[in-house]
């Protein structure tokens, strides 16, 4: 069975690192893996999405509407933006952080209220994580991405925990390893 995971968020939140760690852990487990990223202009504070697919043999690197087994959303509005990409029986993990897009900052529109409730009402299997205060507690607000990787790891029986730790260790600079391992455990133990 091939599986599809989407990591969505706002440019600058560290979604690319998350997809690389996930890809490395999956490869280490012996799966065929494809990861698709978007670089360039959309990274500058825009909506960003990364696709990770794994299984016996993967053809297309991208994920389309109704295809994702898991969506890991780094931000609430981004969770709503990409919900249609979730399989009706898939799982969406949502960081409850709110980052106002420029039209909201400018006051030309409002940030939508009640996103989490709307996702639930749509029938999504949803898990919420309040990752920003956890990251601050771990020691750095930038560790939001690793908290969320931990939360996703708990939801993926496909990868043993030590494989995650190994991929994380190989992907972050040694001086930030302790912080990141702590953040991972916090996410994993929610």
């Amino acid at each position, binding site marked *: 069975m091939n599986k599809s995971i989407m990591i969505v968020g706002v440019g600058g939140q560290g979604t690319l690192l998350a997809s690389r760690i996930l890809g490395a852990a999956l490869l280490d487990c012996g799966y065929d893996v494809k990861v698709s990223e*978007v670089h360039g202009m959309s990274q*500058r*504070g825009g909506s960003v999405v990364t696709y990770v697919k794994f299984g016996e043999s993967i053809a297309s690197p991208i994920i389309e509407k*109704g295809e994702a087994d898991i969506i890991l959303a780094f931000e609430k509005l981004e969770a709503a*933006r990409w919900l*249609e990409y979730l399989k009706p029986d898939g799982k969406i993990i949502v960081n409850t952080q709110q980052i106002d897009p*420029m039209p909201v*900052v400018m006051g030309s529109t409002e940030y939508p209220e009640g996103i989490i409730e709307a996702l639930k009402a749509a029938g999504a299997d949803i898990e919420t994580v309040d990752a920003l205060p956890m990251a601050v507690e771990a020691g750095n607000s930038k560790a939001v991405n690793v908290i969320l990787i931990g939360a996703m790891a708990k939801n993926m029986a496909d990868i043993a925990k030590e494989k995650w730790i190994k991929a994380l260790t190989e992907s972050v600079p040694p001086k930030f390893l302790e912080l990141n391992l702590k953040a991972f455990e916090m996410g994993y133990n929610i």
Partner: protein
Amino acid sequence: MKKLFLGNEAVARGLYEAGCRVVSSYPGTPSTEVTEFAAAYDEIFSEWAPNEKVACEVAFGAAVAGARSFCAMKHVGLNVAADPLFTASYTGVNAGMVILVADDPGMHSSQNEQDSRHYAMGSKTMMLEPADSAECLDYTKRAFELSEKFDTPVIIRLTTRVAHSRSTAPIADRVDNGLKEYTKNPQKYVMVPANAKGKHVVVEQRILDQIAYCEEGADGLNTVEYNSKKIGVITSGICYQYAKEALGENASYLKLGCVYPLPVDLIKNFAAECETVYVLEELDDYIETHCRKIGIEVIGKDAFTLQGEYSQSMIAKVILGKENECLKSGVNIVPRPPVLCAGCPHRGLFYALKQLNVTVSGDIGCYTLGASQPLGMIDTVLCMGASVSALHGRNAADPANAKKSVAVIGDSTFIHSGVTGLINIAYNATDSVVIILDNSITGMTGHQQNPTTGKNIKGEPANAVSLEALAKAVGIQNVIVVDPYNLAETKEGIKNALEADGPAVVISRRPCALLKTVKHNPPLKVNPDKCKSCKMCMKIGCPAISMKDGKAVIDFTQCLGCNVCSQLCKFGAIEEGKA
């Protein structure tokens, strides 16, 4: 150990294994990482060239000298490099020469959606199109072999999804056969009319030879896979992957790894075996047109599209009539366009331009985002370098308003092709004011060094072009340097440039806030007791500032303490934070 290779990284590995010795490129999404990864191999002389034309000519010179050579660029970069390409096709090579062009269907990070396959046909240059990272590596090596076999440059075409997807690729050792001997041969390398006439004959024969090679499958580049013959799919590159995922064994496939020249009999024979034949290709009807020309009835753009990317679900919907179920949240999805980063030095510059209410001739780079609201301070964007030349054109057409318009161009883009426009301004004398946004790096493509930064591709010290001296050398006497973090100074500097007689260059100088070497102040804070909710600080469009419960707040995770917003606050409500 197995490793996931970015498509671009796999190309670089292919360069290494093929014994490539010289790589010269100009950055451009989605091609940039090829050259960055190539630069990590000590065996390869790698460089960032000022532009794609220079890069292509460097690769040509190296190939003639006997080194396997390479240059990479995005699709619009090939427009710049088209001049050497079209004639390098005539001269051919000595050691192999490979040109990589990365198209961007869907325009993730581009100003147009051109289809570079037309360049292969136009320049009569063989073009290969890989479909995943393993093929990126393999085709790169084969491209060098084919370049030498047929005495031609060979183009590798990627699209964003191949360049920026990761998949596994088997690796091998490097084979470097050293420099091939160079023999002087004017009939081959000196393209004056008498010699070029002879070479054109050679080129036409070469294409016939290549077609014959492609008919035989091009050593596995062109493959036929028969499953159900109800549906036949002719495709190449990433569309092959989409088709395989959508149709699996319900279709047969002719996968074209070589997209120029295209075979005739191979296609005819495949089509004859299948009931309904589809051509699946992003952008133009390039393969489809070829099929029609050789008398094969296919379904292509009538059922699909000339715009944007294809996908497995698009193919499943059109061919099988299948659609996935999906959940709907009913949430009003507010768009999230890209914005200038918090702390971006371009922000202060654009705010000053807004205060001066000028017409702005724009260019290609991060600062193109100055076109977005609430700044909205760019009037035109065309191509690299056009800001400067187009400003001159505007001022030639309407000299009375020359004092109300400026050009904005980044340091790297100015070197790429802005400097020629500036020479034109000085030579043909319009009162044009060109603002060079010098952030000490090539920003949008992800921080590449350039001839103004004082470092080469490996980060080693290098000659740095002085923008001030260059401007003066071409004849611009009035050169003003401002710090865009200082709003009053920036506005004053541009105002002075506009009011003075003659052309001027304003250098808005402040390094990119994302550079690791840049030290930041602690995040600023809004004192809610002093905030009068006037929203002045919102006018600069900083993503770190928003309104909560009627008061401005600054997101500590984003703010870099640039203090541009605090210069707008009349009430002193924006205070320095603690380290």
